[in-house]
């Protein structure tokens, strides 16, 4: 029983991380119906930013999350401006394939510059800390990431729901042309959404190098899981993505512990297939 709760805790914490990564994709997918295949690679780049800042300049990850956020914001905005902008009129697969090209580009640039070696940040303020909560061992970096995730998700959700900017985003998502007729600069909205989507990922990548090894391939699985969370949660639904992400984290942890580590992702992907065949619009989709 104790182990079950521990596993559940680890799964939920991990799920929160997935939620933060998926949030960016949810925004992008919801507003412009684009799958950013390079989303996972954004995570990888953010992790490298945090790693190098920490390794070379001894900047603590808690601070470099801001640098990561800013860096990926710019990366996201550039991705839109230079690539996605041109795929808007074309079949939806264009954006997917173009961003796959971007993913390949980013991954191999990092491979080329940084070698495939695995790297981990040690000597940070949070370090390997854990604390006891009864019988539970709570890992501090993961907990901080989870709390951060909730904060950011809540912030973005509030922003979309209750600010003028957020309403402009919703309007653009529902009908781009109508929004333009209302005087909304949809081009700017798209740039900002891609930027914000990137920034959230940048923040997510910030603390991870303390407990997750950084290497060029690390982003791929994050990307896939982000897609799954967004798809299962229902197109464009932030609460849906959050729930789906926690579900994914829990399923991954449970199947990893009780079946076999290699089957973690089989369960997650199997879950996706089950949901999508039974409820094609996602759990909360519209």
């Amino acid at each position, binding site marked *: 029983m104790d182990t079950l709760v521990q596993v559940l805790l680890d799964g939920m914490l991990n799920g929160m991380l997935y939620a933060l990564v998926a949030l960016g994709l949810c925004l992008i997918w919801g507003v412009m119906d684009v799958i950013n295949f390079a989303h996972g690679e954004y995570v990888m780049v953010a992790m490298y930013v945090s790693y190098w800042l920490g390794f070379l300049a001894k900047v603590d990850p808690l601070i470099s999350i801001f640098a990561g956020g800013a860096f990926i914001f710019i990366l996201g905005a550039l991705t839109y401006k230079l690539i996605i902008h041109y*795929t808007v009129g074309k079949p939806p*697969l264009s954006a997917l394939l173009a961003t796959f090209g*971007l993913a390949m580009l980013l991954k191999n640039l990092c491979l*080329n510059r940084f070698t495939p070696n695995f790297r981990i940040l040690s000597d940070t303020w949070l370090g390997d800390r854990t604390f006891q909560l009864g019988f539970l061992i709570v890992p501090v970096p993961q907990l901080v990431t989870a709390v951060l995730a909730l904060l950011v998700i809540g912030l973005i959700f509030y922003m979309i729901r209750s600010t003028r900017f957020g309403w402009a985003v919703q309007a653009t998502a529902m009908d781009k042309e109508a929004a333009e007729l209302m005087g909304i600069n949809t081009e700017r909205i798209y740039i900002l959404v891609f930027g914000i989507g990137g920034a959230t990922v940048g923040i997510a990548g910030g603390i991870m190098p303390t407990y997750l090894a950084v290497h060029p391939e690390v982003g791929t699985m994050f990307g896939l899981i982000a897609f*799954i969370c967004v798809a299962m949660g229902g197109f464009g639904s932030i609460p849906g993505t959050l729930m789906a992400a926690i579900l994914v984290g829990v399923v991954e942890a449970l199947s990893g512990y009780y079946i076999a580590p290699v089957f973690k992702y089989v369960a997650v992907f199997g879950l996706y297939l089950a949901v999508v065949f039974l409820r*094609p619009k996602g759990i909360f989709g519209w």
Partner: protein
Amino acid sequence: MNALKRKDLFWLALVALAALLPAVSAVSANSFSMHVLILILLYASMSQAWNIIGGYGGQVSFGHSVFFGIGAYGAGMAVVTYGLSPWPGILIGMLAAAVVAVLISYPCFKLSGHYFAIATFAIVEIFNRVFLVWYWVGGALGLDYPIVEEGLKNLMWYDTKTGYFYCALALFVLVFGIVRFLEGHRFGYQLRAVREGQETAESLGVNSTAIKLAAMALSAALAALCGAFFVQYNLRVDPPMVMSLDMSMKFVLVTILGGAGTLAGPLLGAAVLIPLQEYTRALWGGLGGGVDLIIFGLLIIIIVVKQPAGISGIVRDIAKRIGRRPTAAKGGTSYGAA
């Protein structure tokens, strides 16, 4: 219709030229250039197999590495696990791939756009993991080929690559020939109609589900055949080598780069990517510092954004500018209707 026959003659001449290449000693003596040529033929065939469902059919599947892998394992197990010649394994592999393809696609075709794409990723990952732990197929260690007698019966040659070259050429002729045939007959037209507008096609009597499943089955069987050749050439197979997302993306991207929905596209794409890949690896060793993929990534971005019809689209535009009689391309300029 004369334009068609001219095109066919061009292809036949190309194949004849290729068949004569090993006779040129400068080529056949250089093992590396033979290797590059063989890989070009293999990747062209693989991509052409994908082209059937992905280009002509408009169903962009990222799951083809599963079929490729089934074909590889089919041949591999026949040789390694059962000590037979690979041929029975090849046939079984092709059949199994077709069956798996139909079983998977039937529910998947009900999904739209992005959901379909992600479902195909999910399937690759599942197969990958399953094969990693499956004892019967060799698990994570994969299958390593023993030394057997050379020749066509065992589909293996050790001294030179000439045997493999002609095999690859035969594979190329088979796959391209099938697609060329279908292109001009009822199946090809109905398949493309489904791509351009499923409801419209059905209003003209096309059973779109049956056509898509048939295209998928054929595509999978041919992909499996390519996988079988791969393992016979590589003498080794394990799950990450064949049943991976990276391999799946190669099927897709080579075709997109060359021009999906066209006959020449897969060859053009392979002819660009493979030399790029092999020569950068030769120059920089190992993974080549990923330079080939950096360039490939850039190329993909540029192609998708600027010229979705790929290299064949670029060639077509140049031909138009030179002022030859512009004939509308057979096949598609778009590679997917969501």
